[in-house]
């Protein structure tokens, strides 16, 4: 038995929503970063599901690029957070407030 594509889409949408809500509501920078990764994973699930639906490999290739990008972003992101933590000793987004209008 195969799982119909819209189930994957529902899962993708769920992950996407969790990710967006996480980015918008959480205060810890690392959690925000994780939420962004969640959205990227939602994208991956969609891509792979579509790829399977169309019986073409494009979507999976795309998904691999996305995974690579997610890895690069995580590396950069953690590096930035460490640099910030050295200077400010916080990872709380509310306390990162030097630049305001």
């Amino acid at each position, binding site marked *: 038995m195969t799982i119909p594509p819209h189930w994957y889409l529902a899962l993708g949408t769920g992950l996407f929503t969790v*990710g967006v809500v996480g980015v918008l509501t959480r205060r810890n920078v690392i959690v925000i970063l994780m939420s962004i990764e969640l*959205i990227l994973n939602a994208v991956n699930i969609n891509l792979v599901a579509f790829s399977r639906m169309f019986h*073409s490999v494009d979507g999976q290739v*795309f998904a691999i*690029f*996305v995974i690579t990008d997610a890895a690069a972003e995580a590396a950069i*992101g953690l590096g930035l957070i460490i640099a*910030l933590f050295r200077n400010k000793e916080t990872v709380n987004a509310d306390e990162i407030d030097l*630049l305001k*209008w």
Partner: protein
Amino acid sequence: MTPVQALDFIRVLPEIVLASCAILVMVAEPFVSARHTAALAWVSLIGIVAAGAGNAWMRRFSGPAFGGSIAADPFASYFVYLLLLAAALTLLGSVRYLETNQVHHGEFYALLLLGTTGACLMVAATELIMIFIGLEISSISTYILAGFRRADKRSNEACLKYFLLGSFATAFLLYGIAFIYGLTGTTNLVQLSEKLSAPGARPPLLWIALILAFVGLGFKVSTVPFHIWTPDVYQGAPAPVTAFLSVAPKAAAFAVILRVFLGGLASAGALVFWLLWISALLTMCLGNLAALWQTNIKRLLAYSAIAHAGYVLVGMAAAKAAGPEAGEGIASVLFYLAAYALMNVAAFILVAHLAGAGERYQEADDCTGLAYQRPGVAACLTLLLVSLSGFPATAGFFAKFYVFRAAIHAHLIGLTLVAVLNSVVAVYYYLRVVVAMYMREGNPRASASPLPWPLGAALALSLVGIFYLGLFPTPFVRLANLAASPLP
């Protein structure tokens, strides 16, 4: 799928040259003694010039490359020149900056080149995957550049904000792209355009995909309401990086919007038009109004950059509204971006000089009386601001003029009126800096040291360009028209 040929590589020659140069600079850095790091800048500059030469040579081999994922067409070529120009000006402006701020890093130049490479890939890409890859190459490099002054808290903060919101936006864009792929079965813009323009082929959920993709790209070009990161990042990032950020990724993202929304997804019609129209309106008004309250020059220029994005969107809306005669609007957008690149990069690298070591003096009041200590510098900044506010005989005027002409031609009279009134509001805040420099008494706190020669050269180049475009725009308009021709 056709096998990869030598021609494919020729068609990405500028990107190859830039990337190789970036790698060369990065590898060479440990072997260069600390006193000679400036040499790396010249190597990078040679790389940029070589990429430009490659771009010129490539004209004879235009066509699609790598199975249609990249196109070497006049459109791409135009933007590549523009991006290389922005990179070269930034480079010239940052040589002495890095010395005064004690950031002797070859990586800076390497990342600058890589950022340019990514942007070049974006403008040449005709395939959503390729666009994404280009976008990420350019974004990741610029994320790091924004935080390059590691010991500075503002730089850290700017960098983190840019990174978080940038990745968030990319995620949106990706989600949109995934939907487009799911709805049409292709990520190639040409095929997409064919599939969507076939009769009766309007996938029902396409609007979700469109909006998601627009949100993602809107973040990159900082349209309201996705602009919230822009002022903070522009203010906090090292000023030469801001110069680059405010032009290169933005111009590339505009090129993508043109390619995707006026090319591949052109048949989505009304929705795209209204998206462009509303964001143009909001972006202009909010950018200009918020800029009125700014006293920090970098932040002021950041809001002005937002407002300029709004004018560009007016041109896009005009192109969209004009239907089959979109060429005029697209050409106006291209002209605008070139003028904007000249003015904005020059303004930010000049501010980088004025802000002095550690970028302590960024306030407009810090320039009080500058005109009598450094008349040349003050006159230069004044000319740039005059051009940014769109006075005649400067590039800024023709940029606005062509956009407004396209908008009037497309009967967007309401939007044009709003844009024109906005440009009056803008005069007020641009003049604030001029008032401080010329009309207030006092001694400037801003760095009154003489202009270093690379910066001087960059400024002279920009000013010549600004006045050339402002007095004799005809050759350039022809170029812009040619560049606009590949798009439908």
